[in-house]
């Protein structure tokens, strides 16, 4: 369903020829034939293997690392924090807080923290050598419970209106506390890199290849580590088997480790985590506790909201401040509320650092809010749909930071669309009748409404000032040069479509490649639902610069589609005349976004995408197993550049959300993930998830390429609360924690039965 056509100043009025079409993917062929080279597939002659020795305790002082004198050390190299100090390396992983070391120096702050690195000609030899390193520790008291933790990494407060006026006027005040656990990204390709030693023949260039989302993050981290200019670091993405945020900041760590070992042994070094190491040592979604206190009038209109968000940051701050920022900015949801106070805090625990994961703080607050609204509806006795309808934003309504959003009414369109497509009312009636038959199973329906801001928060995009380029090639071809990575979402395909459409060229005339920082400008990281909407716009701007140059060469008006042959002829003439083949564009803040990042007031995001999701479940009363019968979702995404790829993002995100809501539980013992195997960490399989029925809504974003908004994270935000609301509906129970495993559902059922007996 596409209900609107693009409009606005930067959008072409002519019919689109490439954008909006399901062209064959650029990245398709190699992945289907086994020819695509992931990092583990790279043939690197002479490469050694690197392994990591990790701390066993939640918190401890590292006293000594002793090499077994009876072991033959000649065939291995070892790197410790002492070596970094000795060679003048900076033992800090460059990011926001600058508190995390590459290797433990003194204090080990979490289990699985890297203590020493070992490389040897084979993996077996490296493992053997590592087993002969003996690290001694003095165990120290640790903090594992984030709800009791006292060390704060970051705090935020958002104020709007006057909360003290709202609550005295309230007809209803409803409170609730909602908790969610870790989630493992569980990309099927684990983290891994190959690092090469500095090459004197090339001015001491250090090269790293591997699985990653953000090549220039690694450049910055290596430059900091080695105290050398960024230009000396070359980072090349290999085909990457999924990221979901898990390859945003962590690759800087493993790349630094491998680069240190490569320098130490003078050879390329491969570090490929296996599943157990990846699950144990790398980042996960932040556990959260969110409390709500909501004031409503007699009709169920929200008068005031008081929301507190607490996140478990793990042992180092890493990206936690920005995860918390996005969490508090989305905590009030797509609802109109004139009086609110949102407070947020992320604290330190002695567990591996939590980090980026699709949604970036929003799934936690969306779960809390959407579950809370169902509880509010039950409390005041109105229909949950009606409660949301009375409070969703209208076009031009203001968010928590007072940002007036011209298309905020899309949240209502999404709600209407999903109710119609899921036949909400009729299904409700059918469920009531079915449940009365008392078959040993119960059916329920749940809803969630949510939104997600496109791109970096606040002034982030202005500060990033990302650059993208297109290059005019011989024979009428154009090549896109960006650092945005293809990690499954179809980056290269979509950029090729944007350039082809901008120039009016056939899609086949545009070439793309996986980023190599020696060959591409810094387009910023591949995160924050920014690749298409933000970087894609810059790519289009670069293509327009090319168009203007060639139009001038040909003496014609810019902005008109090129015939391929004419483009080839004019391009050849331009290049023959010595014209520069590279056309760069820089982020220009097209939406005139303004944000006060001290008071947290203003335009938090350039644009928002909106969604509503309905999940239908059947719960078995014998086992409390949940069967998801149907998922229906309406997602307003501005414009689908490649509808099939867009659907793939939305379906995949919803599946991850259902996994988080129903199945995926990280069991922590002593600060360590105890179920770090795919046998015991339960990802949904093909028979655990039904077909997902999508309604794509398109209200073009004026400043996105051809109207596109960011969509990568949106679907992750609302699937879990919709599913949990459905379970609560089916069994008439209250659930305030995810994952809603059968164990938790059974407890809630037992509590209800006990209450009914005593009543």
């Amino acid at each position, binding site marked *: 369903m596409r209900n609107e056509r693009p409009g606005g100043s930067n959008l072409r009025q002519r019919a689109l020829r490439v954008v909006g079409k399901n062209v064959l993917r650029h990245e398709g062929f190699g992945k289907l034939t086994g020819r695509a080279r992931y990092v583990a597939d790279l043939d690197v002659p002479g490469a050694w293997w690197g392994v990591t020795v990790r701390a066993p305790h939640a918190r401890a002082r590292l006293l000594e690392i002793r090499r077994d004198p009876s072991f033959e050390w000649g065939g291995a190299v070892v790197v410790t924090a002492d070596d970094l100090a000795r060679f003048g390396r900076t033992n800090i992983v460059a990011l926001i807080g600058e508190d995390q070391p590459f290797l433990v120096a003194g204090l080990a702050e979490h289990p699985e923290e890297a203590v020493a690195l070992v490389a040897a000609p084979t993996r*077996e030899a490296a*493992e*053997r050598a590592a087993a002969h390193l003996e690290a001694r520790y003095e165990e120290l008291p640790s903090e594992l419970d984030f709800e009791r933790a006292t060390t704060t990494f970051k705090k935020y407060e958002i104020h709007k209106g006057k909360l003290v006026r709202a609550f005295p006027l309230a007809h209803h005040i409803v409170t609730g506390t909602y908790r969610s656990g870790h989630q493992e990204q569980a990309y099927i390709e684990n983290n891994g890199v190959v690092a090469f030693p500095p090459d004197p023949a090339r001015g001491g260039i250090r090269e790293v290849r591997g699985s990653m989302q953000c090549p220039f993050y690694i450049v910055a981290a290596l430059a900091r580590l080695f105290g050398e200019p960024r230009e000396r670091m070359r980072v090349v993405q290999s085909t990457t088997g999924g990221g979901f945020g898990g390859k945003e900041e962590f690759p800087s760590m493993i790349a630094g480790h491998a680069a240190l070992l490569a320098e130490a042994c003078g050879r390329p070094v491969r570090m490929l985590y*296996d599943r*157990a190491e990846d699950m144990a040592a790398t980042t996960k979604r932040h556990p959260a506790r969110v409390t709500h206190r909501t004031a409503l009038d007699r009709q169920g209109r929200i008068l005031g909201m008081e929301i507190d968000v607490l996140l478990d940051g793990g042992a180092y701050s890493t990206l936690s401040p920005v995860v918390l920022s996005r969490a508090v900015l989305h905590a009030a949801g797509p609802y109109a509320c004139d009086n609110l106070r949102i407070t947020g805090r992320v604290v330190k625990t002695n567990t591996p650092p939590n980090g980026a994961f699709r949604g970036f703080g929003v799934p936690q607050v969306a779960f809390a809010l959407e579950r809370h609204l169902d509880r509010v509806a039950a409390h005041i006795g109105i229909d949950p749909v009606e409660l949301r309808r009375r409070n969703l934003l209208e076009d031009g309504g203001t968010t928590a930071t007072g940002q007036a959003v011209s298309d905020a009414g899309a949240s209502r369109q999404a709600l209407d669309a999903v109710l119609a497509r899921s036949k909400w009312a009729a299904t409700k009636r059918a469920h009531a009748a079915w449940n009365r038959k*008392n*078959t*040993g199973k119960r059916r329920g329906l749940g809803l969630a409404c949510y939104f997600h801001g496109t791109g970096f928060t606040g002034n982030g995009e202005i500060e990033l000032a990302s650059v993208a380029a297109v290059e005019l090639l011989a024979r009428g071809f154009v090549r896109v040069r960006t650092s945005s990575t293809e990690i499954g979402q179809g980056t290269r395909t979509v950029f090729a479509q944007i350039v082809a459409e901008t120039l009016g060229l056939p899609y086949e005339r545009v070439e793309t490649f996986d980023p190599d920082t020696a060959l591409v400008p810094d387009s910023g990281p591949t995160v924050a639902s920014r690749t298409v909407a933000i970087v894609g716009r810059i790519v289009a701007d670069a293509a327009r610069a090319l168009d203007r140059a060639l139009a001038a060469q040909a003496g014609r008006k810019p902005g008109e589609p090129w015939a391929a042959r004419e483009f080839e002829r004019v391009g050849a003439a331009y290049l023959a005349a010595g014209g520069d083949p590279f056309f760069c564009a820089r982020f220009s803040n097209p939406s005139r976004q303004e944000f006060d990042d001290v008071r947290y007031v203003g335009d938090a995001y350039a644009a928002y995408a909106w969604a509503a999701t309905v999940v239908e479940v059947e719960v078995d*009363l*014998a*086992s*409390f*197993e949940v069967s998801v019968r149907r998922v229906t979702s309406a997602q307003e995404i501005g414009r689908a550049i490649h509808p099939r790829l867009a659907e793939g993002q939305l379906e995949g995100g919803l599946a991850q959300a259902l996994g988080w809501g129903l*199945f995926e539980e990280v*069991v922590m013992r002593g600060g360590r993930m*105890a*179920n770090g*195997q795919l*046998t*015991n960490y*339960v990802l*949904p*399989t*093909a*028979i*655990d998830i039904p077909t997902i029925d999508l309604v794509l809504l398109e209200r073009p974003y004026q400043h996105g390429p051809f109207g596109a908004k960011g969509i990568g994270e949106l679907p992750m935000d609302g699937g879990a609360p919709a599913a949990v609301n459905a379970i609560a509906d089916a069994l008439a129970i209250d659930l305030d924690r995810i994952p809603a*495993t*059968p*164990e938790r559902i*059974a*407890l809630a059922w*037992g509590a209800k*039965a006990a209450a009914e*007996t005593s009543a």
Partner: protein
Amino acid sequence: MRGDSSTFEVVRPRGLAEALAELADPDRPMPLAGGTDLFVLLNDGRAPARRYLDLTLLDELRGIESSSAGLRLGARTTYTDLRHSRAILRRAPILAEMAATIGAVAIQNRGTLGGSLGNASPASDPAPVLLALDATVELARREGRRVERRTLALSDFFTGYRATAARANELVTAVSIPASSLSGWRYAYRKVGARRAQAISKVVAAVGVSDPARSDRPRHPAAARIAFGSVAATTVRAGAAEGVLAGRRLDPAAAAEARAALVAHDIRPIDDLRSSADYRTLVAGRILVTLLADLGGFSAADLLAG
């Protein structure tokens, strides 16, 4: 893979006698069939042995024989074999139903009945079904030049957590189901895992009830056989629950009593990574009720309401 595969040795006998001779040696290798459990350990660097006895070439351990005596399933019978065997589908479809709940296709193609029994995991899915079918295990060993075989009731086979009555020099060669279990009995099976495929059971159960027509009193089964997995150190027969049902009409009242007996006497679940003791206790009782309801033709809904 953690560890070094070049440090392992494999013996690949071509016949049973040769295989058993290897097991007769005090420095005996560990049997390896489908590898679906062993390689999980090897990949994790937790090799249980350095020498392995690969059974791949032992065709004597393959095959499903159907006769008037019952069914004899070679130890190397895979779950895929069970799902597609006509004899199984006709005479013991509960085994095919169980096999479909193991892992997924690739695991069903490799995993074997003998491997599962030899491992004696308390979470085994075939074990409760075979217990309900009153199966026997055939064990073979080498005595000098002779191959000696003995047969054990499966209920005597599991002796403790991952421990069996098989001696170190014995190999599981077959599982047999007596004809008496294959007619005049009806069976029901239920696995509760964390997801619908690729799941290790949190609770698994099989129930058999004998045909009431063979009982003295119409509609009253003469006997019931109930077995549970993942609720104790071994797969267990639920003797107390069976006792409640013996000779009793299968109705909601009997089911409720059987559930109470099961929970009080037959199972001792624990908390582990996959579930909790409380959940297992609750759900073991509730699935027993549903299985009895299926077999007895009554509704379990009222028993599940609380």
